[in-house]
């Protein structure tokens, strides 16, 4: 009795209903049914972190979650890391972490990048100005096999420094 069943969840703010077998993994639902190919399948058993998504606002590995577990849940993928239309001038823009990764050479082939973006964005939402150790600890679960981690860490710290700078500016203006 592994008959397909209906699951309702919200993905990047959009309510969706999918009919699936219990064995379907969240990452496959996202990629193959919803066309959200940002979460990548690196290892398929929770080692690499390339499939990172947020479930109810908290980071998770989409290959270690069954979609049937998520009835009523809110899922955010890298495609929704910046809510649509929330960029400058109401347009679709890049998240500051994405801009910084590009500027600091924090990616090469890009396979691990979506997981890195989500992990870093989640960290910065919790702690706007983390220290380098915290950044490294958080990124430890995201495996990169080409460019290494120095550029990634630099990028996250650059966003943190910008936040701190603009906070100071605002405080100075006030």
């Amino acid at each position, binding site marked *: 009795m592994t008959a397909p069943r209906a699951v309702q969840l919200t993905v990047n703010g959009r309510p969706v209903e999918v009919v699936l077998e219990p064995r379907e993994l969240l990452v496959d639902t996202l990629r193959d049914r919803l066309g959200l190919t940002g979460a990548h399948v690196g290892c398929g058993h929770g080692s690499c972190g390339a499939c990172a998504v947020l479930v109810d606002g908290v980071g998770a590995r989409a290959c270690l979650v069954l979609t049937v577990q998520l009835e009523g849940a809110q899922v955010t993928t890298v495609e929704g890391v910046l809510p649509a239309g929330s960029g400058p001038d109401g347009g679709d823009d890049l998240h500051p972490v994405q801009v910084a990764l590009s500027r600091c050479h924090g990616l090469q082939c890009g396979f691990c990048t979506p997981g890195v973006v989500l992990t870093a964005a989640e960290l910065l939402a919790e702690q706007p100005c983390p220290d380098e150790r915290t950044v490294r600890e958080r990124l430890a*679960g995201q495996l990169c096999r080409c460019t290494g981690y120095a550029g990634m860490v630099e990028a996250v710290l650059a966003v943190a420094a910008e936040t701190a700078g603009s906070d100071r500016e605002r405080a100075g203006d006030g």
Partner: protein
Amino acid sequence: MLGAPCRIHNPLFNYAASRIVGGPERVDQRWQRFVKPAAFDYVAASDVPAAVRALAASPGARALAGGQALLPLVNQRAVRPTLLVDLGRIDGLDRVEIRGGTLHVGATARLRALQAHPLLRTHAPAVAEAAGLVGPVHVRNRATLGGSLAHADPAAEVPAALLAARAMVRIVGSDGERTCPVDELVVGAHRTALGHGELVVAVELPLATDRLGGAFREFAVRTGDLPLIGVASQVRIGEDGRCVGATAVACGVADRPRPLAAPQALHGAASLSAAALRDVAAAVGAELDPVSDARASADYRRELTQVLTIEALVGAWRMAAGS
């Protein structure tokens, strides 16, 4: 021939095959052949009795808590459950509270919440530290205390720390409820004394009466990996400033958490002298007979356990003395 159903159980091959044969109907079905786990049924239990009934009714059933240990195995088809009983929807099963003179930690309490939980930090500091060392953050966000314990990986931090903290495990089955210590529950590598249909529902930790300190020290090749060796230690210091209890349990040396007898020599000590620590280290080396495998020799494991035991004892002692 190209249109024949693909029978090779290699997702990559099937994916490649689906690209070769093409055709819109093939593309639509691609996800069906790209699944990783073997088929199973799923039920989200609404309460503990319902979970126990579901587990007892089906021989191939497995309980699903955070899924961070079970789903990797299911994805690789190393484990093929016929039914997964999801405990994630059971209200209150993740509760952490003082109840009946013990610290009650519900089975589905997430490790991420436990690592910084003030009650756990006070009454079972070694367990809180162990929780913070499991996997990367995204795994701890979903992994649970009960799941880590019942998975019984010989290198896992949580079962060793629970044993060092003298935890009792609450188990519910068709015949009712029972309680047993961790070393009666974990009987081997990935083997527990849980009967068919039985479920770990909570862990009960003794409340700290004396000044209590705890620490977990480990060596892992990469941050977030299972450690090669880990040592959990808790130290209790009485009102007169003397040690009234020192425990240490190692993971990664045997097929289950291995309690170390050596720290008992510290009972009655008023301080942690270098000589006493040397004696403990020597005794640890003498009492251990670690496994030897491709990752490390028995000698290396023994030496690592000696070093980590000392570090954990010092950490636990300092915390106890400082409080």
